[in-house]
């Protein structure tokens, strides 16, 4: 099985002036560089773009007709609003974003502070490279009533998919890894050998910096920047049970919780996909999240019970994508 292996990388020491620079050292240098290609290519394209299905290709916020994120508009061709409540994201032909994918939608307009909204997506809708999304809003006020209507509201969206043509720009690069000749003791240390090492290192370096910092952290908006697992507690209050890059949570009022991030997010670059946690299986709960500042995301929680909608304190899980300030 492919994962039953280790990296074929030989730790090398540094050399000093009196050490010979023979073929063994040069071969180890070259083979180490080539060994690093394997893990680098496992879940990245040759340009360094992540291509694991777990990393959404498109992440952003649609405030029709304005769009934020979605990978800098190079990976989708248009966003349209053919009918009230229905927004269609069209991918490029190369990406075929509706095929074999999974989509998360988080309704996030100001109106989520007042009433719950519901979102659905349509697999393979339209021309096969489109993701139609529909937003519904509770038209009755909180309390008794359960009437819904289509409404065009801002929403955050993450489209998990794989491209049909993995060699298309910006996924692939015309630069190719170079194979080397293996040197023996009687082979001259010819310049192509050294140039291969230098070239492969440069390709690998550029690849890693495409969506990573120089320390290896991910700096693409397509990978979440923070996660919060929040529970309810006596008081009432909210408590942070586990987190990644979350500073604190605060109880605002019934069914409203502020989540404060450790790191500020850039303007219009906070994309949330909250999931309310029912207190029992079969309870109908809805969560919405709205960035109210660069460091604070406000979560609204709604409960449907006995024919009534109300705000309610419930636990929730909150993944936050976007761009750090």
């Amino acid at each position: 099985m492919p994962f039953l292996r280790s990296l074929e990388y030989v730790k090398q020491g540094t050399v000093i002036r009196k050490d010979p620079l023979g073929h063994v050292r040069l071969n180890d240098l070259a083979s180490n560089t080539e060994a690093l290609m394997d893990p680098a290519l496992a879940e990245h394209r040759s340009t360094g773009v992540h291509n694991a299905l777990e990393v959404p290709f498109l992440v952003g916020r649609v405030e029709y007709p304005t769009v934020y994120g979605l990978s800098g508009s190079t990976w989708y061709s248009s966003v349209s609003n053919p009918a009230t409540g229905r927004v269609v994201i069209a991918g490029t032909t190369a990406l075929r974003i509706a095929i074999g994918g999974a989509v998360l939608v988080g309704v996030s307009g100001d109106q989520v502070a007042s009433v719950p909204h519901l979102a659905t997506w349509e697999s393979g809708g339209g021309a096969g490279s489109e993701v139609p999304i529909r937003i519904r809003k509770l038209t009755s006020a909180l309390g008794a009533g359960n009437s819904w209507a289509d409404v065009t509201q801002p929403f955050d969206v993450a489209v998990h998919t794989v491209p049909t043509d993995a060699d298309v720009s910006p996924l692939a690069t015309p630069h190719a890894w170079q194979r080397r000749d293996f040197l023996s003791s009687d082979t001259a240390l010819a310049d192509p050998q050294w140039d291969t090492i230098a070239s492969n290192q440069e390709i690998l370096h550029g690849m890693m910096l495409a969506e990573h910092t120089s320390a290896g952290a991910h700096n693409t908006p397509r990978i979440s920047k923070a996660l919060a697992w929040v529970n309810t507690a006596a008081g009432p209050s909210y408590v942070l049970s586990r987190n990644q890059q979350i500073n604190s949570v605060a109880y605002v009022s019934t069914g409203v919780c502020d989540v404060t991030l450790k790191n500020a997010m850039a303007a219009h670059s906070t994309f949330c996909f909250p999931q309310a946690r029912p207190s029992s299986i079969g309870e109908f709960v809805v969560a919405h999240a709205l960035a109210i500042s660069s460091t604070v995301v406000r979560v609204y929680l709604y409960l449907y019970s006995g024919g009534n909608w109300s705000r309610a304190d419930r636990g929730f899980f909150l993944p936050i994508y976007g761009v750090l300030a």
Partner: protein
Amino acid sequence: MSYVRLFQVVQDFVLGVQTVNQARDNNEDLLSVLDARHEISLGVVETSPLKAFGRHDDSLIPRAVVTLHVSTDPGAPTPVLEVSGPLLQAEPIHRATGVWVFQLRGAWTFGASATPLATAAVDYGATAVCSGSTLYVTTWATTGGAFALTDLDFSVAIWGKP
């Protein structure tokens, strides 16, 4: 230690120790960058599929992404899955109408977010809740003006650190 772009050489160029050392340091730097958020298994043969060679081991990335299509053929609802990631133990179980149970493996701090699929203007909702190594996804729709558990297609992304 940091990466430095190396020059290419010609036949009569003499490679000095500093340049060779920089090439070695470049490899170490690239290894360090890769090792930060990816499974490298240097000197250890990794046997866990959760830590497959080259996979991301960043808890900020979902460990699995699933779209479940409900098939009613041959009668009882059965899952038709589009799955990515090594987190699922087996096919999900249809526990009751609108209730699917996923057994997860080898990770902790599970969290999940779900969105239902629909082709028309309908009132559909989904919740995902993790309890231990079990993920429950419930889907619901309006029936006669009130919400009730209903079998629906849905997507779910599942987070957990191996």
